[in-house]
């Protein structure tokens, strides 16, 4: 009977998953098999869009970039966010101000902050120019204009944008850790770093999972940061799959190609998620 009320409580979720998420995903897969241009056309052409997709060097570059960006962005945000949360949790002064400074990037539209990052990283306008002006003429920071390094420039701005929220989530987690644990640690004279490493971090694993999943949805979905900073350039060096989908949906009038790209993205997510889903279903059954 209690399970019944849990089922009732989850009804809105079931309804939305079934109609919106599953429905849209099936629709998208369907459209990826059509020659749809700017409007959906229901005409079967098989895997043509996929063939064209993987012939495009931009798409394959995008996939690689997504992995590079994902690794750097997720890793960077988790590491920096956790460190900031720990340090802020040391009863420091001005906690409120610090937390707001770390979080504010999250509040700002990327159209303009991305432009500001482009200025900062531009060798002719930003840090490089400034430091050289101070007399250090050998100083170089030109990642954003180098095809081999531009992705890392985007990662820096991504970490700037995302680390604050990780900090907030982990800080909330840290504040939920039982104070008794710290009392015990003090009595046994355990150093703080060992406490964090061996006791606190394992407790926070669910929060880390939350952060990692949130960050990976961002890493896969976001294109605005790339559009604002590099427009995918130099050349196609910073193109990402989500930007590919966006461009083909509304710029290049090819809904079919965009749907094929989105379907491939979905398959990749499923490839990672399916084992987890299966394990969960099995656990619930048992």
């Amino acid at each position, binding site marked *: 009977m209690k399970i019944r009320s*849990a089922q009732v409580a989850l009804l809105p979720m079931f309804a939305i998953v079934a109609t919106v998420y599953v429905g849209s*995903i099936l629709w998208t897969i369907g459209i990826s098999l059509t020659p749809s241009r700017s409007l959906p056309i229901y005409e079967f052409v098989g895997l043509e869009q996929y063939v064209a997709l993987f012939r495009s060097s931009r798409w394959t570059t995008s996939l690689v970039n997504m992995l590079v960006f994902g690794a750097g962005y997720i890793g960077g945000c988790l590491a920096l966010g956790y460190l900031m949360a720990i*340090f802020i949790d040391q009863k420091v002064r001005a906690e*409120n101000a610090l937390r707001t400074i770390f979080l504010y990037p999250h*509040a700002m539209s990327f159209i303009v902050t991305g432009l500001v990052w482009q200025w900062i990283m531009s060798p002719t306008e930003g840090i490089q120019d400034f430091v050289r002006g101070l007399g250090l003429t050998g100083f170089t920071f030109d990642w954003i204009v180098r095809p081999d390094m531009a992705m890392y420039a985007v990662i820096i701005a991504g970490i700037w944008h995302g680390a604050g929220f990780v900090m907030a*989530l982990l800080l909330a987690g840290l504040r939920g850790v039982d104070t008794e644990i710290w009392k015990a640690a003090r009595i046994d004279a355990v150093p703080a770093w060992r406490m964090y490493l061996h006791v606190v971090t394992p407790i926070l694993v669910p929060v880390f999972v939350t952060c990692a999943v949130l960050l990976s949805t961002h890493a896969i979905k976001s294109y605005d940061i790339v559009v604002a900073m590099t427009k995918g350039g130099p050349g196609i060096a910073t193109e990402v799959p989500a930007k590919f989908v966006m461009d083909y949906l509304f710029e290049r009038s090819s809904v079919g190609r965009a749907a094929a790209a989105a379907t491939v993205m979905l398959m990749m997510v499923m490839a990672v998620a399916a084992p987890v*889903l299966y394990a969960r279903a099995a656990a619930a059954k048992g």
Partner: protein
Amino acid sequence: MSISERRPWKTVSPARIGTYAFLLVCALFFAMPLFIMLMTSFKTMEEIRSGSIFSLPSAPDLGAWVKAWSAACTGVACDGISVGFWNSVRILIPSVILSVLLGAVNGYALAHWNFRWAGIAFGLLMTGAFIPHQVYVYPLVQLFAWSGTFGTLAAIIAVHVIFGMPVMTLIFRNYFVSIPEEIFKAARMDGAGFWWVFFAIMLPMSTPIMIVAVIWQVTGIWNDFVLGLIFAGRENLPMTVQLNNIVNSQFGEREYNVDMAATILTALVPLVLYFISGRWFVRGIAAGAVKG
């Protein structure tokens, strides 16, 4: 609780210095773009054209701020970003309340009342969260058009609830999972039902995570441009549409000082929330409840 009883190493001064040094370096990194934005917003366009992005304004000028708020052109009208402010508020409040509550209920049900289909539905929901929102636009447009709600306040609120659901559910589920079962096992043995446990035990314990969830939703919904543009209807366009019109004109001249001021002004609502949310980031709310 007193300070001394919690952090014995707090008084060791080299560690203290290290702590502050680290936080200061981080703060500088995070604040640099804001510094440039503020400096640019106080300069005249002439100064921006000829000067360095790091230079201080020679004669700070508030003109760009006034213009951004109430006089910048955004089309035929030149009324700045203030036009859509109340629309944004009208979209924000119901969307945040609904999506956070729904997320909390979902998370709670999934964490402690799990059953087979729930896990699968949750997995599908999370999978859907990895696809760019724009992919959903055509099916959703057709869904809303069919239900006759396309271009209304209800439609945009529903869209925000739909797209907020994966993250909200995830945040709450993983938070509730970490709360020991013993806490409400007793209550359940006493015959407390699903909703009683939720409202009397779980919700009061979840203040910090609730704040995080609200921060996430307020930020996302307040800054949303594309969904508002498509689903809200012309009468309800959020202020980000005006912001976009100011900062994202592709073939017109750009006024960077107005762009910066408009961006900061638009971000003020979430920024204020970040600042005042501090009083809830207190240790012991959840922990205290665990003990109690």
